[in-house]
């Protein structure tokens, strides 16, 4: 939900509640006021009538031109004692002149004369409360809509004017990517909060950039510093292995150690390579024909992995040409193909397809890989000896550097890696 919508929603809910409450209050205030007035007039009239009755004067005719009307009954003593002597109430009353029921305010008074108890009912037609409610409701709704529209316009205006720096910041963040050059964030706002926010963002971004840079340099340096000690270990073992006095068993152990060291070396080299690509050290590009690369390495790998009896099918619609560094293009192709061969079951399938816009390498597999993790360093679906876990990270980095898109898909028991322009 957008901030603006959220604010509008809250304002409209709050104003609806406030206005509804206010409408109820308003209604009761009006009704109360009207009743008060009407009751006063009924009081006067009743008093007048009672005085006439008590004085034995003639009662006014029922149609005396005023709105006030009355009835008078004789009542028993028990009746007088059971009911309150003065009662106000609202009731629908049949009005003879109008031949219909109308709401009326009624004052019932019980009083005692020399002849016994009497009940005097005085009433006067009053405002139609239902009509009043409807009218108030109608006007409240109209007012609500009016206020809502006003608030909407007001908010649009306020947001436009005041929240602009926020949206500038958001769009800047959208474009921002750590480690990439990015236009500096400029603040044109004089508002303190935004100034602070911009300052905080700038500082945090700078800090992150610095950390990122440090980390990159650290990985590079660490890998680099390991080269010489690794060389020493490897070379010492090599010299040791040339000793003819070693037993076969000793030789084998040394060879295994040697192999493990080789794996570390390879991992180290891959890490260095990643750093170098990210630092843009493979800037020289030329037009590469991916088809011929694929054909060449499919042949090599088919020979090397011949024992796995993998079924390779290769089809090309047209040639896929791409502008990139030559050795990186080889790395990209060989890593993808190697994965397809190494992580394939014996007797599995590999399907390589090339079109003018890209190529895909598909290989048999049982379970899909975690597509969110697959291109991160050291992610391995299943641990494989000698595997560095850097192959796909390397391919991903190469693709990024060459402006290619790489995607992973699992479809019909095949892992499919597609690369396109």
């Amino acid at each position, binding site marked *: 939900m957008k901030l603006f919508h959220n604010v509008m929603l809250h304002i409209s809910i709050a104003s609806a509640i406030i206005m509804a409450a206010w409408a109820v209050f308003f209604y009761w205030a009006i009704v109360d006021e009207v009743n008060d007035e009407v009751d006063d007039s009924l009081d006067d009239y009743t008093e007048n009538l009672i005085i006439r009755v008590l004085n034995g004067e003639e009662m006014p005719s029922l149609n005396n031109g005023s709105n006030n009307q009355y009835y008078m009954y004789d009542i028993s003593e028990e009746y007088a004692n059971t009911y309150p002597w003065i009662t106000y109430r609202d009731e629908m009353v049949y009005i003879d002149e109008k031949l219909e029921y109308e709401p009326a305010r009624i004052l019932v008074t019980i009083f005692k004369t020399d002849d016994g108890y009497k009940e005097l009912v005085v009433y006067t037609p009053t405002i139609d409360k239902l009509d009043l409610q409807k009218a108030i409701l109608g006007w409240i709704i109209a007012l609500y809509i009016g206020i809502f529209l006003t608030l909407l316009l007001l908010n649009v205006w306020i947001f436009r004017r005041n929240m602009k720096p926020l949206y500038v910041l958001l769009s800047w963040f959208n474009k921002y990517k750590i480690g990439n050059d990015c236009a500096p964030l400029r603040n044109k706002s004089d508002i303190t909060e935004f100034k602070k926010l911009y300052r905080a963002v700038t500082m945090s971004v700078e800090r992150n950039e610095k950390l990122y840079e440090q980390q990159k340099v650290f990985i590079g340096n660490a890998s*680099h*510093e390991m*080269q*010489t*000690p*690794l*060389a*020493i270990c*490897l*070379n*010492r073992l*090599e*010299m040791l*292995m*040339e000793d003819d006095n070693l037993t*076969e068993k000793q*030789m*084998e152990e040394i*060879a295994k150690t*040697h*192999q493990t060291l*080789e*794996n570390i*070396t*390879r991992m180290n*080299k891959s890490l*260095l390579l990643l750093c*170098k690509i990210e630092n843009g*050290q*493979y800037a020289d590009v030329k037009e590469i024909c991916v088809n011929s690369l694929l054909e060449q*390495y499919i042949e*090599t790998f088919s*020979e*090397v*992995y*011949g*024992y*796995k009896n993998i079924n390779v099918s290769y089809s090309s619609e047209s040639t896929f040409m791409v502008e990139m560094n030559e050795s990186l293009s080889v790395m990209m192709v*060989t*890593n993808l193909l*190697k994965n397809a061969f*190494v992580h394939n079951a014996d007797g599995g399938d590999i399907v390589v397809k090339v079109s003018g816009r890209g190529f895909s390498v598909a290989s048999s597999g049982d379970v899909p890989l975690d597509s969110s993790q697959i291109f991160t360093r050291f992610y391995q679906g299943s641990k*494989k*000896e*000698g*595997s*560095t876990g850097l192959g796909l990270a390397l391919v991903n980095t190469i693709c990024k550097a060459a402006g290619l898109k790489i995607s992973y898909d699992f479809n019909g028991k095949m892992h499919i890696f597609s690369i396109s322009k």
Partner: protein
Amino acid sequence: MKILVVEDDKDLMEIITKSLEKERYVVSQAPDYRTALMKAGDYDYDCILLDIMLPDGNGLDLLAELQDMGKKANVIILSAKDSIEDKVKGLDLGADDYLPKPFHLAELHARIKSLLRRNQREGEKKIVFGNIEILPEKFEVSVDGKLIDLNRKEYDILMYFMLRPNRLVNKSTLAESVWGDHMDQVDNFDFIYAQIKNLRKRLKNAGSTPELKAVYGIGYKFVLE
């Protein structure tokens, strides 16, 4: 043959020296830029192994100095910094080869050997071991003076062993140098066995004296019986 090793790491210096002396080279050591400049200036070496990052200077500067002095030496750069710029710069400054660390000792020897051979006169650029001769320019292999036919892979394998006689060659290293750089996850070396088997057969039929000996679990050694 005199070789100057310029390397600041003591361990590596020791290993390289030991290994070179085993091959009967005369080895001179220079642990820093100053010593290297002095020695290279005073003496003539057949080959200089040069580390780029030295405590008191850059190996590339040494190359420039040598050029200024008009010294002609075969230089192989040994660098932990496997960077293209350094490589290009080094080769531009007159280095003959570039070997990134870490390297196999067998590889170092092969590079030195091929470098020294390059300086031999035309016609002598053949590689000989036992009664086998290879003329790399013509891709010709002969045993006892008789030409034999090898396919491309067999030739590459033989060439690899001819440059590294009497040295233990790891089969994964062999695979990498003959089949390409991406053999790191191969867990079955049948494809090598097949080629080696054919090569052995051909060599044996031609009556070669050197023999490809298998070293169980590791690789092969090309030895003269």
